[in-house]
């Protein structure tokens, strides 16, 4: 047998094994989360806040964490879109010809993407102390926004980069300003990818525990204003899993299952929307 044939077989086995290992570990993660979580995922669990303290109380559910997490991640995602989308468009339309500057911004965004979320948490905490804000929903939203902006910007940026130069030129030659080119042409052409990038950022926002550890605090109640602390699903898992009381630990598993289900819904929605908005996209 010649060497090229052996190489072919070697890499085929390598790829096959990698695929199987990854697929199996994912299935185990999903299965074990649902196995522990689903039995406790009763109506009471998702419709009631914990009674008698989240750490010791045996009654109640995790509604506070579900609502808190949704508040937090919707807030952060919306804020991140307000800053991230214009930035990504600016990079690709307005200053596209200044390659060095664009590359510096991309490099900085990549660096920020790589910074661990606990560092964002610590940063958010020092900011809070500086301004004299307590741990609250607002502080959490701001911290998580900072944490997901690089993810969102680079995600959208990658999509916008695939808009062909000819389309950019066509738009300009019709007399569009750069802003019109950005929002009416680039954005329209890239909607599916942009939606995916936004939902990916949302997924990161709702799943992260470290950045909100110091900044949002944790309570039994559903927050009624931005200045109140709030519970979140990742921290619901973190705090309740270490409890000596089995009912409290069950709440942690249920929280994990809920988190998983939310992420699943987000992924399905992102597929659905990117298909739907594909309609006007030109395939160059």
């Amino acid at each position, binding site marked *: 047998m010649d060497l090229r044939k052996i190489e072919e077989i070697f890499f085929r086995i390598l790829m096959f094994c990698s695929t199987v290992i990854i697929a199996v570990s994912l299935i185990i993660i999903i299965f074990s989360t649902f196995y522990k979580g689903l039995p406790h995922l009763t109506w009471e669990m998702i419709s009631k806040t914990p009674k008698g303290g989240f750490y010791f109380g045996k009654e109640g559910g995790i509604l506070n964490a579900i609502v808190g997490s949704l508040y937090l991640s919707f807030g952060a995602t919306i804020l991140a879109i307000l800053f991230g989308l214009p930035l990504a468009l600016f990079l690709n339309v307005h200053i*596209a*010809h*200044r*390659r060095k500057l664009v590359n510096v911004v991309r490099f900085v965004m990549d660096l920020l993407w790589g910074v661990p979320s606990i560092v964002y948490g610590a940063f958010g905490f020092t900011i809070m102390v500086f301004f004299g804000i307590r741990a609250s929903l607002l502080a959490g939203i701001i911290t998580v926004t900072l944490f997901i902006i690089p993810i969102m910007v680079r995600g959208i940026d990658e999509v916008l980069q695939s808009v*062909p*130069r*000819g*389309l*950019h*030129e*066509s*738009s*300009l*030659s*019709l*007399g*569009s*300003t750069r802003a*019109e080119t950005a929002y*009416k*042409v680039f954005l*329209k*052409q890239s909607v599916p990818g942009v939606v995916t990038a936004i939902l990916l950022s949302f997924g990161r926002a709702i799943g992260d525990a470290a950045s909100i550890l110091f900044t949002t605090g944790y309570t039994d109640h559903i927050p009624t204003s931005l200045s109140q602390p709030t519970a979140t699903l990742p921290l619901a898992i973190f705090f309740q899993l270490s409890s000596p009381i089995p009912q409290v630990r069950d709440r942690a598993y249920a929280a994990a299952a809920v988190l998983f289900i939310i992420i699943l819904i987000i992924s399905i929605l992102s597929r659905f929307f990117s298909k739907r908005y594909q*309609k*006007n*996209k*030109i*395939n*160059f």
Partner: protein
Amino acid sequence: MNKPKINIQDLNLYYGKQHILKNINTIIPERQITVIMGPSGCGKTTLMKSLNRLTDLTPDCSVSGKIMIDGQNILNTTEDITKIRKKMGLLAQRPYPLPMSIYNNVAYGLRISGRKKRRFLDKRVEHYLRQVNLWNEVKDRLKEPAGTLSIGQQQRLCLARGLAVDPEIILADEPTSALDPISSQTIEEKFKELKNQFTIVMVTHILRQAKRIADYVIFMYLGEIIEQGPAKDFFENPQEEITKDYLKGLFY
């Protein structure tokens, strides 16, 4: 020959350190078809794109000299660049329809100049689609995405879209290179009609096409203009050796 619409003086263009256009001096006559010809990589597309400053998009691009359009130097102007670009419709090598419906593609230019009344738009869209012989093919599917048209139809749509902003000049960069013979013929015939109203600048490396439609020819080689003049003189009595070789088909 008609009076010049565009007058280019001592134009030099660099991409980084690469000298792309070297001392270009030429004129482009009004309401005629000027063909810029030459082998690939000779700078003809760059010359055309510098006319509406699309070269601004290229990193590290520096330009010197003058491009006078109606007596105004567009390289050094206080006027809004979007106004200058509106004077020129662009037809690219392959069609780049905007990511929206057929109707909105044509209405786009009108909308961004503030003409938003539905009835006015309906009329103009029909007018321009008829002008490029596309109306009958698309009148029942105006709401469909432009991407569903065939390439030949898309190129005609792009022409209609360009005409809709009411330009004075049409810039065409090998507009038929991606098209089938019949669509190419439609575009060429349109150009012959349109030259009564518009100044047309077309880049091509198809010799026969240039012979069919050119009124004025600019021949470029390695970033320089080798020879230029009215089409008849140029094709029947070329002066330079390089031009003669090119016309004989000795190189492309």
